[in-house]
């Protein structure tokens, strides 16, 4: 239990396509988190920002950018970039600082503005860049998610409608979430009417990119007790492990996996390895989990995550969805926030948004989307180039 820190405050800027500067979203989320925490901005001695790569230099130094926007007050800053796991890495930096006794209260912020139009790859013949090569042969991001989805169909008997059920469930969860971008209850007819993008995935089942911001104020347990918040929700574990060679799953943007031909080399699944360290660190088992926020870049990927988090056995996720067990009120609710299906992805903010949702869930503050009696929550996400994270929140 020596590795816990308190979550004193959480805040978000609603997700959308607002077209404004990312600093505005981060500032909004940070001020909301600071107000929620009931601390003074001047009391925060460490500002940990999640970087964005598409908003120029201020995005590369996000920690300093947010600290300046809130008013320089001498706090130390950090900026983390780890693709989709940037927010978790920024949280991990704040947690390490607190657990090392170097600061008592820290602010963690991530925010993003989506680019206008497509990000065109650099021109020219660039065979050394795997991203250029895969686009040359026509492999896009949805191709990878579709490959995972189709493999489930052939291996486990999942159907296209199972993936549709995930989308429908998430749309119902997110319907009343004030921070969600898409608030519409979809039906199976809507799913069927959506154009096929990459078999078996339809447009409605692939997540969009969004603007948004999320922030946390975290502190030592000692500090939390001193300000009368000893009962605050806690971060019990943060896992940001990298893959182990040989990674058996074809990952974006590669056109081939590692080879496991060498003696004594076994294949590993990166996604499944992420929560292992988190469960160990928190000293809990997957059976203790009450609620999960997972990275549904596609509806089908949510099923992979359920199995990677060991919430059910390999190949069993679709049967849980069919039985309604992953809905709010079911045995193990998944993505009560509505998930990426209702938010779209705001890369540096998304992992923090998952922690915000779990904090609200564990406080019992989620109104219509409340998972009753939730005491243990887990997040999971994965990005490019060996980045991913899993965070466990308890109360």
């Amino acid at each position, binding site marked *: 239990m020596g590795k816990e820190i308190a979550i004193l405050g959480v805040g978000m800027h609603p997700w959308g396509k607002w077209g404004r500067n990312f600093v505005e979203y981060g500032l909004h989320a940070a001020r909301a988190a600071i107000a929620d925490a009931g601390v003074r901005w001047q009391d925060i001695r460490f500002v940990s920002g999640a970087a964005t790569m598409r908003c120029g230099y201020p995005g590369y130094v996000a920690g300093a950018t947010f600290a300046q926007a809130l008013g320089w007050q001498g706090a130390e800053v950090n900026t983390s970039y780890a693709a989709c796991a940037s927010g978790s890495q920024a949280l991990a930096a704040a947690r390490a600082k607190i657990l090392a006794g170097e600061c008592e209260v820290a602010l963690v912020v991530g925010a993003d503005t989506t680019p206008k139009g*497509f990000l*065109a*790859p650099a*021109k020219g013949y660039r*065979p050394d860049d*795997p991203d*250029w*090569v*895969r*686009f*040359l*042969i*026509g*492999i*896009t991001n949805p*191709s990878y998610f*579709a*490959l*995972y*989805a*189709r*493999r489930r169909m*052939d*291996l486990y008997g999942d159907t296209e409608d199972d993936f549709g059920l995930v989308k429908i469930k998430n749309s119902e969860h997110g319907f009343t979430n004030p921070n969600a971008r898409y608030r519409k209850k979809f039906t199976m007819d809507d799913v069927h009417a959506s*154009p*096929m*993008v*990459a*078999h*078996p*995935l339809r447009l409605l089942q692939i997540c969009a990119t969004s603007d948004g911001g999320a922030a946390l104020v975290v502190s030592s347990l000692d500090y939390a007790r001193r300000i009368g918040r000893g009962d605050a929700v806690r971060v019990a574990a943060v896992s940001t492990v990298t893959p182990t*060679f*040989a990674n*058996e799953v*074809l990952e974006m943007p590669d*056109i*081939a*996996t*590692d*080879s*496991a*031909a*060498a*003696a*004594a*080399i076994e*294949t590993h699944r990166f996604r499944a390895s992420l929560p292992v360290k988190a469960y160990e660190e928190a000293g809990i088992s997957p059976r203790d989990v009450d609620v999960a926020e997972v990275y549904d870049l596609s509806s089908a990927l949510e099923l992979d995550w359920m199995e990677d988090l060991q919430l059910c056995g390999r190949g069993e996720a679709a049967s849980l969805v069919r039985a309604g067990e992953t809905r709010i009120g079911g045995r193990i609710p998944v993505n009560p926030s509505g998930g990426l299906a209702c938010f779209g992805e705001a890369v540096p903010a998304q992992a923090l948004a998952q922690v915000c949702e779990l904090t609200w869930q564990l406080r019992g503050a989620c109104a219509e989307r409340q998972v009753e009696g939730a005491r243990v929550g887990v997040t999971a996400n994965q990005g490019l180039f060996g980045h991913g994270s899993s965070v466990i929140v308890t109360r």
Partner: protein
Amino acid sequence: MTAKPRVAALEGWFTLDEHEPRLLGSRCRQCGTCYFPKQTTYCRNPACDSTEFDEVPLSRRGRVWSCTNAEYKPPEPYVAAEPFEPFTIAAVELEAERMVVLGQVVTGVSVTDLRVGQEMELVLDTLYGDAESDKLIWKWKPAG
């Protein structure tokens, strides 16, 4: 009209043998790990400290790990025909190399024609053509 020259869209990535093409990877001299595309600087097996590699042709046959298709035109540098023709994609597992390699599937094979575990073989096909030449790429085809 004379036929345009046929050249590799990615130079050195595969042999230009029209009947039995092979992907060209590399293999670590010390531990036997294979790489595609070629790795020639340092072995990525964490237990291996080798800097020596041999170029090796990879297995021509493998089994479908999974498959999908592209219903919409991919962005550049993909060069699409007008009008765009959807194409099938397969990730194929090579048994000896214990690795999975992506590629397009030859025209005429739909994603619903394929199954995980089905045997595939490597062929050469045109990725796109310009005024000077046809650019060739590897594609997967159900093994005959």
